């Protein structure tokens, strides 16, 4: 299980919880696990999200390995100029 | 509207063209003479990307009519280097990283050369006011000023 921190406006879809536990070994499993456990997150995840893993931001790397003690933060899909 | 036949000199070479009475010198240079060095950033005299010299005077080519240049001498960025050797201003722009995207560069080179031709030793303030009609969105002007001053110094020493 890894603890995933969600940003504030997503918490209405997780019964108000800021952090949820998901069984996942990589980013893809994490996203699938989140959608399965909290279907309200599906539209946002389909539009795109980034993930910060131990402070480093990943945009679409599904197979980035996640360890149980990793710090995982879900972030909006990043855009730049 | 009947086209007008014009004979002129561009960068020392005799050239002829026909143009519409309301056609700008910039359009003539770019579309009829194949000299695309002068750029159109606005078409209204506000950006200086189209700067050329007309009988030695610095003008915005977008504000001059092609029909006005019969018998005139025009200078564009294409004529600044001689025989394949860069002008000190051109070399200084490369050395000082005075261009990023480079779209303003032709106009700024023509304008800066025109200043140094009449004032070989401008102050930074004179230079900044002289170039105030040439917009550069990339550099913040800092390296442009440094490049022109370096070129001016080298030209004085030469």
């Amino acid at each position, binding site marked *: 299980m890894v603890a995933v921190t969600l940003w504030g406006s997503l918490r209405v879809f997780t019964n108000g919880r800021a952090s949820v536990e998901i069984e996942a070994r990589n980013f893809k499993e994490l996203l699938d696990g989140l959608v399965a456990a909290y279907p309200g997150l599906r539209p946002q995840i389909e539009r795109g999200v980034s993930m910060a893993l131990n402070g480093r931001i990943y945009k679409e790397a599904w197979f980035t390995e996640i360890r149980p003690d990793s710090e995982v933060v879900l972030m909006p899909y990043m855009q730049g*100029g | 509207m009947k086209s007008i036949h014009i004979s002129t000199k561009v960068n020392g070479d005799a050239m002829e063209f026909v143009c519409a009475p309301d056609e700008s010198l910039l359009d003539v240079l770019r579309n009829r003479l194949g000299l695309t060095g002068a750029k159109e*950033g606005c078409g*209204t005299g506000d950006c200086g990307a189209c700067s050329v010299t007309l009988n030695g005077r610095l003008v915005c080519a977008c504000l001059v009519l092609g029909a006005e240049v019969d018998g005139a001498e025009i200078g564009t960025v294409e004529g600044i280097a001689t025989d394949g050797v860069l002008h000190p201003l051109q070399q200084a*722009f490369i050395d000082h990283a005075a261009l*990023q*995207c480079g779209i303003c560069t032709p106009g700024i080179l023509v304008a800066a050369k025109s200043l140094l031709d009449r004032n070989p030793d401008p102050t930074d303030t004179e230079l900044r006011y002289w170039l105030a009609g040439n917009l550069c969105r990339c550099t913040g002007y800092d390296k442009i000023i440094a490049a022109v001053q370096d070129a001016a110094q080298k030209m004085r020493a030469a």
Partner: protein
Amino acid sequence: MMDTGHKRIFKVVGTRPPRPDGIDKVTGRAQYGADVSAPGMLTGRILRSPHAHAEIVSIDTSAAEALPGVKAVVTSKDFVFQDDDFFRDVQENCMATAKALYDGHAVAAVAAVSPEVAKAALKLIKVTYKQLPHVTDVDLAMRPDAPVVQDGRSLETVPAGMSANVTHHSEFGHGDLASGFAKADVIVERSFTTAATHQGYIEPHACLAAMNADGRADLWCCTQGQYNVRTLCAALLGLEASQLRVTASEIGGGFGGKTTVFIEPVALALSRKSGKPVKIVMTRDEVFKATGPTVTSSIDVKIGMTRDGRITAGEAHLRYSGGAFPSGTVDMGGQAAFAAYDLAAVRTFGWNALTNRPKEAAYRAPGAPQAIYAVESVIDELCQNLNLDPLDTRLKNAAKKGTLSSYGPTFDDIGLIATLEAAKKHPHYTAPLAAGVGRGLSAGFWFNFGGNTCVTMNINTDGTVSVTEGNPDIGGSRASISMMAAEELGVPYDKIRTIIADTASLGHNDVTDGSRVTFAVGLATIKAAQDAIAKMCARAAKLWGIDAEAVEWVDGAAVPAGPNAGKFPPMSLAEIAAVSFQTGGPIAGHHEFHADGAGVSFGVHLCDVAVDRETGATKVLRYTVFQDAGRAVHPAYVEGQMQGGAVQGIGWALNEEYIYGADGRLQNAGFLDYRVPVASDLPPIDTVILEIPNPGHPYGVRGVGETPIVPPLAALSNAVSRAVGVRMQSLPMSPPRILAAVMAHDAKV
């Protein structure tokens, strides 16, 4: 992960060689978007809505089509229906279907044998509009009774009961605000507004499209990303990616504004219909009305501080409008707002509302400058109220490695404290201030990105190297890429030539955005070089009759690894290349990947201003930029990014704004009335580059292009506020605004 290279001694990286495109650009030879033509080419022009908001009842193109010399007329009907929201918005912005959503929105286009005929044809297109009430102000657009720009566009995160214009809502942060504010000795709460600004690249959008009846097409255009242009155009016209080859011209500035399409699909549609090449070049007026700009914003910030300068809580409410289409830029603002600080309680609430303005395009660090302007202004006011040094106060609260960031993750190595300390030590900070001069400072932050990247490196038989990459070079990136290739291969810089591929010649590359190129393309170049090196070592091993593992690459040559490998003289890249046909064929290195780990960056800007209390005019007297570049590959180009970004920020702070009339039409669509900084407005822009290596890059490189536009807004506002003795709360601080603020203040005292 890859931090072995940090202590290495660089030979090429960190020097300042001339850029490969330099001579082309100083002689007028470089070809930009509008500089090419094709035989038989037509001129394309676009008809635009004169109304801020109107239903398009009908479009009659028959008279235009009948005009001699007109070869094609297109409307929205000539594009493929998109069911994906993202593509539909791009398409709708290129050509309106049911409604014109802003002044300047494209409604039809013609291609004709000359510009004159094209112009005449536009006048013959009869569009029947039914004008609708409009809204251009973000706060008004959020009211429940506001005219609705587009209905049904709200995301699921937006609470029920709000205006249909509200499309996005996001919330970030941690901790308990109430108890944080309870600990404060002083709380300041202020509201701010920022105007929409345009990227202001000097080159208007331009393209040349040629499409055959069989669906095969070529497109030449000025863009920050030819692959993205291909993706979008292929979707909008129903083409296969392989059949559409997009070539990026030299680009005359972008800053984020050339990351999407406006005229390109239109030119392709006109070319398809006419069977001839079609060139479209925007006028400056069109550039202002229908491309760019940034969001416009209205922001409330509340910050609590103890007497000794510790921030106890920070809260921000951000209301952004990205124009007539949904925009998530406010998410970036909400995440960036307090990113510079180590806070126990922090919360940002963001909203995006639709307005009858052009669709926002990215502009350097999109969303961050506005939010950070508001936060840094309030921090400055707290420092004034508590009589605290603004730099020391920021140092006291600065985020560092291990800080839980305001947007969620814990920071890795970051350079904020070092940057603040550099500012504190700099003579500018302690230089005495003349009477009436104000000094302001601001910190700034941006994320930076990596992204999809693909690089090919060919080792030529004469010992030179051709690097092929896929990102248009705006600020000298070809030089930086060549430098990294030279560094890794161990050959001189001038043996390398880097070119930008068209979409048919190299795999996908994300657009030149997010400050990604030197980081991600550089990383791919290093990896491609390593790939080529491995192949060259294998060739040398073959020649020597030893194992490939027994060969290593030192200073541009293969050498036996250790005494056991045998005694052979080093074999240089040129020597290996010369016999490559005999040893197994041409040698090339490749690398394709999705780069992550770009590393966030911080900047601190310091400025002195004098304000004329009679006219309200501000003169910037001195300006210094401090920024962490990780590793400056070409320091002159890094300085150039810092200076250019700072000056764009100065323009935003002092003059630039989209001004809409009561009729909802843009009143200043030209450089005369939309005034960007000119040379005589500015002092020299000093730069101090810090190098705190990014652990995610073998040379330590961080993106540098975007952060510099973030701090100027508050740095200028804080300086002006201190100079005039009135807290400025609205950008730009144009002379009339400053005068009004001063007069309102004087009337009170």
